[in-house]
């Protein structure tokens, strides 16, 4: 064994250790967060982070820009809120109903949308999610502009009272970690590899004998279901479901979050979501118009750091030394 290889492998394990330490630090931070910040605010960030991560599954790892993810996020919020308020289900059942509803919506929209690519794909998803939006505006069970209000948080598994803020927080954190875990497992599975190959070169993947459409549909439904998980969770945190979550602006916001954080990275959407939600919250009490500032941030992101915050960090010298690899 020469000296050179020895040094390389030791830096490699060093970087690996460092990454483990970073991961543990993030976990400790998430556990301590409700005691440092306003808990509801942190819960909101976690919901949006999960939503953005679910969206990233499609944009970052499969290369499909969906402009209709609000339908899954907001739709699931309505399903969960309705189930818990009108049928009196427990939170976990409510969320499962939300996820199932979002997955079903994803299946219908996905079946139509995956037949096209690029801008056409984005437009089809936008059109179909707008159809769903107008359905929500008009139908009686969503209560139109009023939204479904005063949704009881209930008892988790009939035991743990979610009206206690700490209980609610750790429930949200658990669901968030499970969601992120599923995405991580999914991306790093053979299935995820095929998705990446579709992103890089669809024709070649077809020529290798893969039924590309099925993989695309699978990824779409998976992304929709996870977006639904985030939406259902948000409905329980805030105790309501309103039109805001199904409106097309929400689809735009999640794209902003993902791009800002860095597409194709696990942490990127989480960072992006935290940033956007914090901006919205902080600017609310300032004299700056929120929409203009968010717009400027987006422009700065596109002009200055195209890989997004986390993507640029990965690509930087420090990031490379830590053993991160930028996706593109």
């Amino acid at each position, binding site marked *: 064994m020469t000296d050179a290889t020895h040094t390389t492998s030791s830096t490699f394990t060093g970087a690996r250790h460092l990454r483990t330490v970073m991961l543990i630090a993030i976990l400790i931070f998430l556990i301590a967060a409700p005691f440092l910040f306003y808990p*509801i605010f942190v819960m909101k960030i976690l919901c949006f982070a999960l939503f953005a991560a679910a969206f990233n599954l499609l944009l970052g790892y499969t290369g499909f820009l969906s402009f209709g993810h609000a339908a899954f996020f907001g739709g699931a919020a309505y399903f969960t809120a309705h189930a818990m308020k009108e049928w009196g289900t427990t939170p976990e059942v409510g969320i499962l109903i939300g996820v199932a509803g979002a997955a079903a919506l994803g299946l219908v929209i996905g079946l139509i949308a995956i037949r096209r690519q690029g801008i056409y794909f984005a437009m089809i998803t936008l059109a179909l999610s707008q159809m769903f939006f*107008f359905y929500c505006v008009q139908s009686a069970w969503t209560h139109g502009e009023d939204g479904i209000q005063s949704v009881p948080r209930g008892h988790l598994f009939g035991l743990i009272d979610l009206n206690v803020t700490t209980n609610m927080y750790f429930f949200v954190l658990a669901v968030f970690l499970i969601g992120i875990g599923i995405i991580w497992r999914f991306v790093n599975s053979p299935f995820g590899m095929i998705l990446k190959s579709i992103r890089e070169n669809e024709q070649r993947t077809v020529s290798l004998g893969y039924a590309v459409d099925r993989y695309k549909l699978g990824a779409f439904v998976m992304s929709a279901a996870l977006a639904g998980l985030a939406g259902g969770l948000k409905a329980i945190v805030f*105790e309501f479901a309103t039109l805001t979550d199904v409106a097309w602006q929400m689809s735009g916001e999640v794209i902003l979050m993902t791009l800002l954080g860095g597409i194709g990275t696990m942490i990127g959407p989480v960072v992006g979501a935290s940033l956007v939600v914090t901006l919205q*919250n902080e600017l609310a009490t300032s004299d700056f118009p*929120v929409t203009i500032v968010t717009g400027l941030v987006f422009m700065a992101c596109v002009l200055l750091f195209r890989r997004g915050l986390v993507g640029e960090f990965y690509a930087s010298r420090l990031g490379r030394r830590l053993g991160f690899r930028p996706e593109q």
Partner: protein
Amino acid sequence: MNRLIMTTALVAAGAMPAFAQEVSDNVVKIGILNDQSGVYADFGGKASYEAALMAVEDFGGTVLGQPIEVVTADHQNKADIASNIARQWYDTEQVDAIMELTTSSVALAVQALSKDADKITITTGAATTELTGAQCAPNSFHWAYDTHALAVGTGGALVDQGGDTWFFLTADYAFGYSLEEQTTEFVESKGGTVVGSVRHPLTNPDFSSFLLQAQASGAKVIGLANAGLDTQNAIKQAAEFGIVQGGQRLAALLFTLAEVNGLGLEAAQGLSLTESFYWNRDEASAEFGNRFMERTGVMPNMVQAGTYSAVLQYLKAVDAAGTDATEAVSAKLHEMPVDDVFAQGGTVGANGRLYKDVYLMEVKKPGDSDIPWDYYNVLQTIPGDQAYISPEDSGCPLVNG
């Protein structure tokens, strides 16, 4: 002499902490939560915050010897942002009451969480009757207007003014249907008839085919059961079609002074609408309007004047109760009559609804308006008990035990 000083000092020392205990955290804090950057920014917006500041100044700046503070935030028309801010205000910033609350999803959400947090809300910006109906709360109030009052004012009273045949342009969603339905009820109860209606999609840029149908129907009144940009577009295009010049009347069911100003008198002339406040109605309101204009550059509409009144009445109630504790202040708010520039002889029902007069107005012709912002003729005053649903019929569970 020494003794006298001692006694005075003792009394003073005894009185000070007693005073401090009556007001939580030694400050009475009011939050103004509304849309300041989106579609309703003119409807309430920053001007509502200014109205609240004016009310505090007019009250004297202190209550029970303690300072009054007003905080504000832009909820961006999102219920989750509003809910987050409201909770944070209550939990960490000792806010005692939240007011304004434009858009119904926000108002209902904040009212529900305030019920749990045992705090007071006074809504002026939202229209839904749910706030004092099925979803009413013991410490929540609805101050400026609601869809029922708008329907009674524009629907019922306009029939009295000769507009007895109606045609509706209705926005194709729940809010539009409920406006049309409620207005139809009052038109028919007054002996009028509805000859037809057409539904248009939400945020519709082109009303020409709908307006032609309305024109062809020969109805005396064309009712616009929509809101915001849709109403503005419909009015602008109706002006291009010469509908008002052709002898038909346009009636907007949710429209305020700020939007008339945005459209201009040329397009809006002859329009009928209902508001619960008009700045140039009498001397007191004109004086208030001019003071408001100096600060904000706009004349107040019913939302902004309503917010002024809500803050003022809240402070009066704190003063009368001798504390800022929710239950005591809420009890005073329920029992005290409301007499200020916004409401004269107003009363508050058990469901939290403020009962005061509303006015049917007609927008003036450009030639008849001699001073800036002088836009309305008051056609009719509708007493509060006719304009609003009575507490007994409101469906509020708090009424009748």
